[in-house]
C-alpha cells in the first residue's frame, strides 16, 4: 500500500477533507471509518454542493404532513390519509448495466416509500437517452425499459406515467429517474429516527454481498492482499420477488405497531441507513458486524458496512416485540436478524470479531459535511430566433406528419405497454395522456401524477427552464381536472464545478422555487444527481419535477380524448407560441418565452372548476410539437377527426407548431361554451377554435391550412419508436 496514493485519495476524499476528518475525530480514522466518511461525504449522500441551494424551495403549506429530510414527503389528502412520494435517480448504475440499474432504481424508490409505512400505489419513470440512431443508445433504452418493466411488474405497483426523451447530449450519460407514490394513514407514518436506548436494531430482507461496493473494494483487496475476481465489487442485481415480500412484511409490521423506526438501505448501505437513523433520533447505534447475514465469505468489515445489496430494510424494535417481529418475517419467508442496539452515546459503533472497528459520532457523517458553494459563472443570454431565417414550409401537412413521427414527440406506447398500468384496479387514467390518475384505495378521491422536465429551456435560460419544468408538470396534472398540491424534484446536472453548470443549477432552482410558490405547491422530497457528463461534454441541465394533484371526486377526472362529433374545441390559456427551442425548430436554440406562473395558476383554477362542474369532455396541454400535435393527439386518443382555425400570429407555421405559454386544448358540448367562458371571467383566455368530427384533422392558421388523415397521423405517431428500434 505504501507505494500507492494515500487511501483517502483513492476513496475520493481531498486532502483537506481528510484533514478535517482527523480534526473532528481527534485521531487518525480507522480504514473502515475512512471508507464510511468517503461515502457519506460524497455528493451522492451528502448533497454537499446542492444542499445550500435547495434551501430556496418552498417546503411548507397547510397540506404538508412531512417535508424534505425523511425518506419521502407526505401530504394530507383528506379522510385522515396522506399521499407519500419521492423521485430518485439511478443514472450511473443504468449507464453501466441498464437492465439491473433501472430495475434496482425502481426497487430503491419503492423502499423509500415503504420506509414511511406507506403502501405504494403508483410508479412513474423519467428517461433520457442518446438518439435512436446510436446502437449503444438503443441498447440502453431497450434494456432500461425492460428493467423497469421487470421489477415494477413483478412487485405489483402500477406504472401510470412518465416521459422519455432522446438527444445526443445523453449519449454517454443516460438518465433513469423513478418516482413512487404511496398512501398511508396519517397516524401510522413512520419516521427513520431511532429512539429508545436498549431497543434492537433489526436487518430485514436479503443477505449482504459485495454488491455495488465502490471505493471500499480498493480497501478490501488491499487489506486482504490479493485481488482475485471474486473479491471485486459486483453489480447490484434486483430481486423483485424478495422486494414484494419485504414490502408486505414491513407494512404488516407497521400495521401491527411493531416498529419504532424504519429505514431502507440504499446508497452506502448500512452506513448511511444507520447514521441517518442515529443522527435523526439523536442517539447512538452499535452494530455487531458478525451477526449480519452474508451471502459471501471473507467480506471485510468496511464491505459489510457499505455494501449496497438490495432488498434490505433496517428497523428499530422494542425488545419485547422481537419475537413477534421474527414471526412476521418468517411468515413472509424473510430473514430478520438482530444486529445491534440503540445506545445513548450518539456514536455509530461497529464491532467485528469482538473488536471495535468503528466509533464515529453519527452527526460527523451526516451534519458536519464540508459544504461547498458552486461557482456561478453565467452563460451568455441566448439570442431569440430570427423567424425570417427559418424557411416557411410549402407543405405544412408534411411537416406535421414528420413531427408526429419524431421520436421525442411520438407516442411512447412501446415503453408503457411493457409496464403493468393496472395492478391494484385503481388506475383510472392510464399512461399516454397528460397525467396518470389513480383512485386513492377505499375512497372516492383520486390523485393525478406526472413527471416532467424542460431541459432545452433550462439549458438556454435556466431560470425560465426551472419554471417551465414546474409549470409543465402542473399543467399535465391540471388537465385531468386535479388541483396540483405538492411536488418532488430530481435535479440531474453535470459537474457543478465546471463551466456554467453551477450557475444553471442555482438559477433553475430559483425558477422552480418561484413557480412553485406562485402555484402554491411545496416541494416535499427530492434527489440530486450531479456529474452527469463525459469527456464529450455535459448533459442538458435536467430538473425533473414530479407533481401530485388531487381530485376530490374521482369520477370528475378528464382524459385527453375527443369524444363525439359536434363537440366544441376550445383553446384555453395564455401566451404566444414561439419557434424558439421547439421540436419544430429541432434544435436547442433561441430564447424560449418566459413562463407566466400567475397566468398558469388561474388556468389551473379554471380547469379544476370546469371538471368539478363537469363542463368539459377532455383537456390536453399544448407542449412538444405545439398546437397541431396536441390536436392530433386528442383526435387519435378519441378515434375521431377535428377541424380547428386559429390566428396566424407572426406566421402560420409558428402558430401551428410553436411552443410556449400555458395553453390547453379542451373539448366540450357546445351548450357549455358560455358557462366555461363565464367561469374564466376574462382572467383566462377561452376561445372556441373548432369542432370535433370527420376522418381527418386540419388546422387553419390565418388561411394557411394543414390537413392530414387521422389514420396517417395515428400510424406515424404510434409506430415511430418501434420502427426506429427495428430499423437496424
Amino acid at each position, binding site marked *: 500500500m505504501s507505494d500507492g496514493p494515500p487511501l483517502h485519495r483513492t476513496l475520493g476524499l481531498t486532502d483537506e477533507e481528510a484533514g478535517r476528518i482527523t480534526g473532528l475525530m481527534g485521531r487518525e480514522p480507522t480504514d473502515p471509518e475512512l471508507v464510511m466518511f468517503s461515502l457519506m461525504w460524497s455528493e451522492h449522500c451528502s448533497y454537499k454542493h446542492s444542499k445550500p441551494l435547495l434551501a430556496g424551495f418552498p417546503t411548507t403549506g397547510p397540506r404538508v404532513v412531512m417535508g424534505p429530510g425523511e425518506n419521502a414527503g407526505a401530504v394530507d389528502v383528506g379522510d385522515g390519509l396522506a399521499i407519500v412520494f419521492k423521485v430518485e435517480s439511478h443514472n450511473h448504475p443504468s449507464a453501466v448495466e441498464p437492465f439491473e440499474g433501472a430495475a434496482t432504481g425502481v426497487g430503491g424508490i419503492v423502499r423509500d416509500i415503504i420506509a414511511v409505512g406507506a403502501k405504494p400505489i403508483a410508479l412513474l419513470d423519467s428517461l433520457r437517452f442518446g438518439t435512436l440512431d446510436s446502437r449503444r443508445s438503443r441498447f440502453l433504452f431497450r434494456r432500461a425499459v425492460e428493467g423497469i418493466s421487470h421489477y415494477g411488474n413483478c412487485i405489483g405497483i402500477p406504472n401510470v406515467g412518465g416521459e422519455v426523451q432522446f438527444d445526443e447530449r445523453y449519449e454517454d450519460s443516460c438518465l433513469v429517474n423513478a418516482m413512487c407514490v404511496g398512501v398511508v394513514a396519517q397516524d401510522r407514518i413512520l419516521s427513520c429516527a431511532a429512539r429508545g436506548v436498549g431497543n434492537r436494531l433489526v436487518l430485514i430482507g436479503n443477505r449482504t454481498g459485495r454488491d455495488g461496493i465502490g471505493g471500499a473494494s480498493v480497501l478490501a483487496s488491499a487489506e486482504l492482499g490479493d485481488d482475485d475476481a*471474486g473479491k471485486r465489487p*459486483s*453489480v447490484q*442485481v434486483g*430481486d423483485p*420477488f*424478495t422486494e414484494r415480500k419485504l414490502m408486505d412484511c414491513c407494512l404488516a409490521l407497521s400495521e401491527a405497531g411493531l416498529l419504532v423506526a424504519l429505514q431502507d438501505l440504499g446508497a452506502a448501505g448500512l452506513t448511511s441507513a444507520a447514521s441517518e437513523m442515529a443522527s435523526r433520533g439523536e442517539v447512538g447505534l452499535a452494530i455487531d458486524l458478525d451477526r449480519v447475514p452474508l451471502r459471501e465469505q471473507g467480506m471485510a468489515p468496511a464491505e459489510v458496512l457499505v455494501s449496497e445489496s*438490495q432488498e434490505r430494510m433496517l428497523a428499530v424494535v422494542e425488545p419485547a416485540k422481537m419475537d413477534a417481529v421474527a414471526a412476521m418475517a418468517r411468515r413472509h419467508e424473510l430473514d430478520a436478524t438482530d444486529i445491534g442496539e440503540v445506545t445513548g452515546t450518539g456514536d455509530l459503533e461497529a464491532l467485528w470479531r469482538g473488536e471495535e472497528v468503528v466509533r464515529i459520532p453519527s452527526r460527523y457523517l451526516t451534519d458536519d459535511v464540508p459544504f461547498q458553494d458552486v461557482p456561478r459563472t453565467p452563460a451568455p443570454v441566448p439570442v431569440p430566433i430570427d423567424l425570417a431565417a427559418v424557411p416557411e414550409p410549402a407543405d405544412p401537412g408534411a411537416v406535421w406528419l414528420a413531427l408526429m413521427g419524431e421520436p421525442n414527440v411520438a407516442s411512447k406506447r412501446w415503453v408503457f405497454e411493457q409496464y403493468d398500468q393496472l395492478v391494484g384496479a385503481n388506475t383510472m387514467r392510464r399512461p399516454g395522456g397528460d397525467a396518470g390518475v389513480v383512485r386513492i384505495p377505499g375512497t372516492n378521491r383520486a390523485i393525478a401524477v406526472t413527471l416532467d422536465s424542460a431541459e432545452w429551456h433550462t439549458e438556454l435560460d435556466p431560470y425560465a427552464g426551472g419554471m417551465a419544468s414546474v409549470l409543465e408538470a402542473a399543467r399535465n396534472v391540471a388537465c385531468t381536472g386535479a388541483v396540483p398540491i405538492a411536488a418532488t424534484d430530481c435535479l440531474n446536472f453535470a459537474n457543478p464545478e465546471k463551466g456554467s453548470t453551477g450557475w444553471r443549477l442555482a438559477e433553475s432552482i430559483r425558477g422552480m422555487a418561484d413557480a412553485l410558490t406562485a402555484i402554491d405547491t411545496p416541494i416535499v422530497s427530492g434527489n440530486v444527481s450531479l456529474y452527469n457528463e463525459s469527456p464529450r461534454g455535459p448533459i442538458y441541465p435536467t430538473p425533473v419535477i414530479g407533481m401530485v394533484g388531487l381530485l376530490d371526486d374521482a369520477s370528475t377526472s378528464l382524459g385527453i380524448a375527443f369524444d363525439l362529433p359536434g363537440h366544441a374545441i376550445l383553446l384555453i390559456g395564455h401566451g404566444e407560441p414561439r419557434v424558439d427551442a421547439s421540436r419544430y425548430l429541432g434544435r436547442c436554440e433561441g430564447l424560449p418565452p418566459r413562463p407566466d406562473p400567475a397566468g398558469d395558476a388561474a388556468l389551473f383554477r379554471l380547469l379544476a372548476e370546469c371538471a368539478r362542474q363537469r363542463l368539459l369532455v377532455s383537456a390536453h396541454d399544448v407542449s412538444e410539437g405545439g398546437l397541431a400535435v396536441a390536436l392530433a393527439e386528442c383526435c387519435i386518443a378519441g378515434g375521431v377527426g377535428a377541424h380547428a382555425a386559429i390566428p396566424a400570429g407572426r406566421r402560420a407555421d409558428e402558430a401551428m407548431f410553436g411552443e410556449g405559454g400555458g395553453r390547453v386544448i379542451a373539448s366540450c358540448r357546445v351548450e357549455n361554451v358560455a358557462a366555461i367562458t363565464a367561469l374564466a371571467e376574462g382572467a383566462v383566455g377561452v376561445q372556441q377554435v373548432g369542432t370535433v368530427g370527420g376522418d381527418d384533422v386540419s388546422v387553419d392558421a390565418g388561411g394557411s391550412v394543414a390537413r392530414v388523415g387521422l389514420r396517417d397521423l395515428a400510424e406515424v405517431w404510434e409506430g415511430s419508436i418501434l420502427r426506429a428500434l427495428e430499423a437496424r
Partner: protein
Amino acid sequence: MTMVVVTIMPKKGVLDPQGQAVQGALAHMGFGDVLDVRVGKRIEIEMRGHDPAAQVTKMCEDLLANDLIEDFHVEMPG
C-alpha cells in the same frame, strides 16, 4: 456444420434469485438433499464457416453474455 454449446451462469458472488427460488421450492417438495441451486442458460448454436468456437466466443462477448454479472463458457461437443 458444427454445433457449438454456450453455457452462461451467474457470476460467483452475484445474487441468483432464480436459483434461490427453485431451491426453496425443491426443499418444500421434500428434496432435502439439495444444498445449492444455480440457474443459468444453455445456448446451442449450429455454425458453418471456420473456427466456429472463436466466432461464438465473440458472440458471447458482444451479445450473449453480460460480463458484469455472468460467466460464459464455449465448448464443442463430440
